[in-house]
């Protein structure tokens, strides 16, 4: 019996060594997860951007259903990557809205530059005391610029594709 225990202990020793010497470096998984996130950088997931959220998923401190802009599709993609079950979007974090971009009503803009720092992708152009504009093609629709504006001149406009970008949709099933 003692013999067996010693044998087990030896196995444990081997295992311990294996665990140490074959320890994997780095965690490319973060990148893979980050690549699936919409990169809106809106912080609705309660993390300061998409990558921190990706890190949190890897660390298992966050669920996969906390990103409203990504919605069900992102959740499904994450579930597939991680080999876990999908789950509905957690409403605590907000709901998925139709894609939109910010638009500054130019005649109301007082040029306070308060909206520029919050924009995570530098999509707002403007200088102090001058009218600001949003570069629509770069705006991610994160809405972070809305709250800081003292005169509420920033509105979200839904993105309607022009005919050139129109696509067929299925009417059945």
């Amino acid at each position, binding site marked *: 019996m003692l013999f067996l225990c*010693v044998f087990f*202990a*030896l196995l*444990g*020793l081997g295992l*311990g060594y294996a665990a*140490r010497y074959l320890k994997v470096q780095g965690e490319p998984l973060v990148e893979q997860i980050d690549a699936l996130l919409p990169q809106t950088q809106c912080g609705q997931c309660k993390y300061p951007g998409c990558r921190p959220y990706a890190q949190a998923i890897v660390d298992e401190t966050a669920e996969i259903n906390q990103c409203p802009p990504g919605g069900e599709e992102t959740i499904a993609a994450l579930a597939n990557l991680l080999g876990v079950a999908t789950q509905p979007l957690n409403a605590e974090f907000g709901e998925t809205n139709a894609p939109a971009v910010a638009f500054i009503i130019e005649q109301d803009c007082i040029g306070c530059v308060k909206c520029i720092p919050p924009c995570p992708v530098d999509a707002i152009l403007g200088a102090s005391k001058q009218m600001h504009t949003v570069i629509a093609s770069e705006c991610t629709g994160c809405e972070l610029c809305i709250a800081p504006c003292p005169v509420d001149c920033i509105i979200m406009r839904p993105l309607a594709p022009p005919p050139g970008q129109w696509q067929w949709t299925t009417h059945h099933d």
Partner: protein
Amino acid sequence: MKPSSPANAALHIGLFSFMIVGLVTLVFHATKDKIANNERQTLISSLQTVLPQDSYDNDLLNDVIKIQPYTIYRARKTNQPIAAIFISTTPHGYNGDIRLLIGINIDGKITAIRVLKHKETPGLGDKIEIKKSDWVLGFKHKSLSDMSSAQWAVKQDGGSFDQFTGATITPRAIVNEVKKTGLFFQQNQQVIFQ
């Protein structure tokens, strides 16, 4: 997580396994006799299905002889051989081997037979189990010498044993095996009871 040292891990596993193995060993020793007894009891009661308990007085389990392809338990009363119990196997079942327990009196009469193991089609061939039908009871007290050899066969082959609906192969295999075993017993009694 920082891995702790391998030696530490080994120590852990060693310690844990010592505890657990120790516990199991304790229980093992506590139950050892009971289990051995159970096993013995089961075997005996299985043998007793083909040979009544009061017909012999020796220790069946220790009076066993192996003659290929049979395992034979010898029953004696006051040291006189009175019967033998054969474990024999026929390969001619519908789906492979059928293992039988056959009790034969010293005078060549079958005391009883039971099927120990088979793979026959459920619902067709499995009526050879005592649980499913009492077909096997039909062998009781049949003797080889009673019947002409030709009658030791299923009805379809002109014999006197029933087959059951839809299945001839299985009963045929058993009847033939019992007959073969009986003949073997008749011819080798001396050797068996040496």
